[in-house]
């Protein structure tokens, strides 16, 4: 079992440097960090580094959730819609006078139901994940708009002090960073040390083989989407706490691609079976360094997007040169 999840290319065209995409991205991140540290005054201040981490915490949490799904050779394009609608429902229930516990319970329940429905569609109805979750994201948004909330922007009620406390600080460290750390740690433990975590790698590596081996692949698929939806709900609550508002328009934004960017950039291949939480952290930190540095440099919006895209391309190009795909490493189901 230990070999599962550590598949590597066997015959690189280039000299084998032992470089995985994760290490490449780590080097890029270190390079940027060094350059910014030397050239940008105030970049290395501990305040700035903490805010750098805080600013990508929610992205990182979503990245961990997406990572779990992608490792099992799935994808959850409905994640951001789930996050937005379930959180928005919680907050609007609170605005309507529902107790905090009930509101959170209902929101969490809604997210869980979404996850289970998606899992069933993918595992039992056998719709490809990319289509099932794409369709679900529209359904979730539409249903939410129709039945749960009727405004794009919902303000957190003034008296919800407990909600604001979720994004406070402890000993100078912003709580969102700690939540990210906690989610990452739990996901790491789940993927590495539990039997079910190893099942996810096996399924991602070779779904049919996993099934023949006796792994309960269908229930496990449901578990994956359940996890990603529930984690997304947590990320939504943290965002709501941080901004004191929920904006459901993110459901229709390109945010889900940012999440996939973090996952893929870190080196979790979309073909599944590879990678882990560390990859997500590396990808998230690189994006955080880039965004923070570019904000300090006051670069324009268009240029920032260009740089982000270019860095992703460079990472992928270097990876395909160092770890080329061949008949042995290519898998059915590669995107």
């Amino acid at each position, binding site marked *: 079992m230990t070999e599962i999840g550590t598949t590597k290319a066997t015959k690189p065209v280039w000299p084998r440097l032992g470089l995985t995409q994760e290490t490449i991205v780590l080097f890029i991140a270190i390079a940027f960090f060094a350059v910014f540290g030397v050239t940008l005054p*105030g970049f290395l*201040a501990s*305040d*700035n580094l903490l*805010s*750098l981490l*805080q*600013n990508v915490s*929610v992205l990182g949490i979503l990245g961990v959730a997406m990572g779990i799904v992608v490792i099992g050779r799935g994808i959850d394009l409905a994640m951001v819609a789930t996050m937005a609608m379930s959180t928005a429902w919680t907050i609007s229930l609170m605005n309507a006078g529902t107790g905090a516990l009930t509101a959170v319970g209902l929101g969490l329940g809604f997210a869980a139901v979404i996850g289970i429905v998606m899992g069933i569609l993918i595992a039992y109805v056998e719709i490809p994940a990319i289509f099932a979750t794409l369709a679900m994201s529209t359904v979730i948004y539409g249903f939410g*708009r129709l039945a749960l909330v*009727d*405004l*794009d*922007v919902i*303000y957190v009620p*003034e008296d919800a002090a407990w909600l604001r406390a979720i994004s406070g*600080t402890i000993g100078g460290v*912003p709580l969102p960073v700690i939540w990210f750390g906690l989610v990452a740690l739990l996901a790491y433990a789940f993927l590495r040390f539990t039997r079910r975590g190893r099942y996810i790698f096996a399924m991602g590596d070779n779904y049919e083989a996993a099934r023949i081996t006796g792994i309960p692949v269908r229930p496990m698929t449901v578990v994956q989407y359940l996890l990603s939806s529930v984690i997304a709900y947590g990320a939504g609550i943290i*965002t709501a706490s*941080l*901004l*004191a*508002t929920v*904006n*459901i*328009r*993110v459901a*229709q*934004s390109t945010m889900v691609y940012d999440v996939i960017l973090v996952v893929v950039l870190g080196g979790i291949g979309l073909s599944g079976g590879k990678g882990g939480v560390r990859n997500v952290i590396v990808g998230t930190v690189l994006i955080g360094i880039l*965004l*923070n540095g570019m*904000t*300090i440099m*006051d670069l*324009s*919006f*268009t240029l920032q997007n260009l740089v982000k895209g270019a860095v992703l391309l460079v990472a992928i190009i270097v990876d395909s040169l160092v770890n080329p795909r061949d008949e042995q490493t290519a898998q059915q189901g590669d995107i």
Partner: protein
Amino acid sequence: MKSFLTGVLAALTLTTATAGMAPAKQFDDGLAPHYYSALKGKKVVFLPLAMSFDLPQVWAQGMETQAERLGYELSIRDPNWSSDAGAQALTTLISEKPDLMVVHNPDMQVYARLLARAQKAGIKVIQINLKSVATTDAYVGVNWYEVGEHQARMAISACSPEAGGSGKIAIMQGTPTNPNNAITMSAIEDVLADHPEIEVVSSQSADWDATKAHSVASTVIKQNPDLCAYVGLWEVMDAGVAAAIREADKVDAIKLFTNGGGQKPACDSLANGAFTGYVSYDAFGQARDLTNAIAQVMQSDLKPGEAPYALYTPIRDLTKDTMRDDSCWTMDDVAKAPF
């Protein structure tokens, strides 16, 4: 006697049939009969950006109240932020031929040709809150340049070194290609050009997204410890800036100037110190302007587009001190107001 009874009956039938609609009979003062007949039974269509935010909801509420009073038929086509869907709706509408269209443009170009075609096809068109390059019967809405001027002046008077400020301000933009963003920004730049003592330390875009605005602002605030003010281009996005200021524990040191339609949460934010200054374009007042423009355009016998006119919304600057109980509105106020 019989004829009297018939008369009473006829009057009763008429009253029931027209209950809640335009009065059956009018005192003819020379205008009233035309005013009511110009709108009765007409078809008015509202094409918003989306129905899911405060501004279109207020305008639609105003029109619904007016439609009930004057007996016209109002329908709403909601493209939910998609300008493609909006353009398709417009194309369909041109062949459906309503009497009047109220159009909320996503930008200055995308509907321009369609609006011209609609006018040619004999449909009257009122544009609201963002004017397309095509000029139609009426424009009701804010002059974004004015909003930018007001915001810039607020920041200057708060931050100029003469007033004891550091002179350093930062700007939070929405999407640079968006026309109201571009127009507001050009106003801010024009005003600042006359004030070299004010330094813009950061001018970033957050794509109207509070999360991104929060990330950018938290970095900029740490980078510029003596930052005096933030100028943001939309209240909803600027909730993120406010959160970053609160987190940095600088609510008193960093002032935040923003703009919006003047709904209740804006006044709450002024009261609790999240916003320092707010340029309100009073969507409630716009609803009244809009319903008046509908009445005016429909009474006119001119061809569509023959005599275009504008009603630019009077804007007002709100601060904690100038704010009054009635400075902001709620949806309930709008629903209960006459139009």
